[in-house]
């Protein structure tokens, strides 16, 4: 299964690298976030009460990372739809290759791409002014990778179940937007009215966002960090299960 996963991973990675457009987008995106979005958010972070402790960049970079993982991950399903229509998924399902490998190979490749972008974003943020403990940053990146993996698995599962771009994109959009707005990525949920705050607590990503921010200021062994890590791992486990079931399922 490891060999099979590796074969699928390699194939998927080569496909992405073969398209220079996506490679460039992937590299430029983190720069854009920092250069065009950072200057706007820094004063807001500094002047808004309720953001967690830390320098503005320590608040902003984790938010951008989470957004990257979530946004990047949730849309990967789009790519499998083209292949699904060309019979690629079906062709692989008729081979003895493990159904777990069929999903894992692709999802791990997406995770690798997201992690690479995340590292790039973090490194680029240093000249902008990011100062954070190395251990915390590494844990934060790991959290983003787990989140990206969860989002990728879920995205593939969804794509193969709806089977059409026309249905997939609106569904992802309608899931992504409330998740984003209720995650406290851009503005802290502590300034929200009580009903909105309560609603945001039902969003699992809130805990991951809080945890990523906590580890970025070095609070590794706190309840906030721990809860976020547990939530991220649970999300990944559920998504993986759903994704594998989808690949096992007939005619997916």
């Amino acid at each position, binding site marked *: 299964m490891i*060999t*099979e996963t590796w*074969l699928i991973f390699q*194939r998927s990675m*080569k*496909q992405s690298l*073969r*398209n220079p457009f996506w490679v460039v987008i992937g590299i430029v995106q983190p720069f854009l976030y920092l250069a065009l979005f950072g200057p706007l958010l820094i004063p807001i972070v500094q002047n808004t009460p309720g953001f967690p402790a830390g320098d503005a960049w320590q608040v902003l970079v984790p938010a951008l990372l989470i957004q990257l993982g979530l946004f990047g991950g949730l849309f990967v399903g789009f790519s499998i739809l*083209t*292949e699904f*229509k*060309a*019979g*690629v998924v*079906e*062709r*692989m*399902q*008729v*081979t*003895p*290759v493990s159904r777990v490998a069929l999903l894992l190979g692709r999802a791990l490749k997406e995770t690798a791409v997201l992690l690479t972008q995340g590292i790039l974003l973090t490194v680029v943020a240093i000249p902008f002014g990011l100062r954070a403990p190395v251990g915390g940053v590494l844990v934060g990146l790991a959290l983003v990778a787990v989140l990206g993996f969860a989002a990728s698995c879920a995205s593939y599962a969804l794509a193969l179940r709806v*089977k059409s771009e026309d249905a997939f994109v609106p569904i992802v959009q309608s899931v992504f937007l409330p998740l984003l707005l209720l995650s406290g990525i851009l503005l802290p949920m502590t300034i929200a009215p009580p009903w909105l705050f309560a609603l945001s607590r039902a969003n699992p990503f809130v805990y991951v966002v809080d945890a990523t921010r906590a580890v970025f200021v070095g609070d590794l062994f706190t309840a906030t960090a721990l809860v976020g890590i547990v939530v991220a791992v649970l999300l990944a486990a559920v998504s993986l299960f759903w994704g594998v079931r989808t690949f096992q399922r*007939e*005619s997916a």
Partner: protein
Amino acid sequence: MIHARGLARTFHTRRGAVEAVSGVDIDVSPGELVGFLGPNGAGKSTTLRMLTTLIHPTAGTATVAGHDLLTEPVQVRRRIGYVGQNGGAGPDCPVGEELVLQGRFYGLTAAESAKRAAELIGALDLTGLDDRIVNTLSGGQRRRLDIAMGLMHLPTLLFLDEPSTGLDPQSRANLWGHIRGLHAERGTTLFLTTHYLDEADALCDRILVIDRGRIVAEGTPDALKRRVSGDLVVVDSTDPGRTAELAGRIGSEVAVEGSVVRFRVEDGARVLPALLRELDAAGIAMTAVEVRRPSLDDVFLTLTGRSLRDEEAPEPAEARS
């Protein structure tokens, strides 16, 4: 090679249950080239997808390539090749890479797989296309690549779903040549679906005719055609009235159209000399005479009361996707 009993599949849609395949029995011996003929929506693809482990039957049992379809799907997958309607090679991937990867899925080492790929590239006239991106290939090349992909692990049984759909006549004839060669040289058992009569006729040793989820007839193309009451004889003469009269004595379904008389008769080629002598003796001059063997379309018409050509009912979306 294939033994299926009562294989059935019902799809549940919003409009209710649709019985795509209602209990088919299929027996295919090793080395056979069997065609599954029927109009679109008859249940061909659904049956094929059940036999290749892609979808679960709602009823029935089957042994495919020596293993039980329901309890040992992985064993079945190891032994069969499948060329789906849409092919299966990644549109944005290089030809060679996809072939080698396909071999590796079946446990070949990279070296073994590369060797096998090179051999199949040669055998299927794909030489020089290793580095081409799949979606730049012509329709015919693409189809041959799909077949090469299905053969990477040298399966004993290969399923082909509508192999020549969408190909121009020349590529089609070329593809048939390859399929025949594959069958003759490698002894691969082939099971193909088609809604083209000429394809079933040109390629298959034996044909199963499926209509509305049931197998309605089975036999060699010739045996099936014999089920239609005789050959069609067409005589163009100076006296169609008297010709029709003579024809009525030996044949049936006599029809006159201008100077042309058509009728059906058993074994037309044997009956013809005597008929010609009689016409000649009666002083009727003939400008053209033709004996036409019944086509599979006639067979389908006889069996179902509908023409295969006219039947372009769209297959239910669930049955395809």
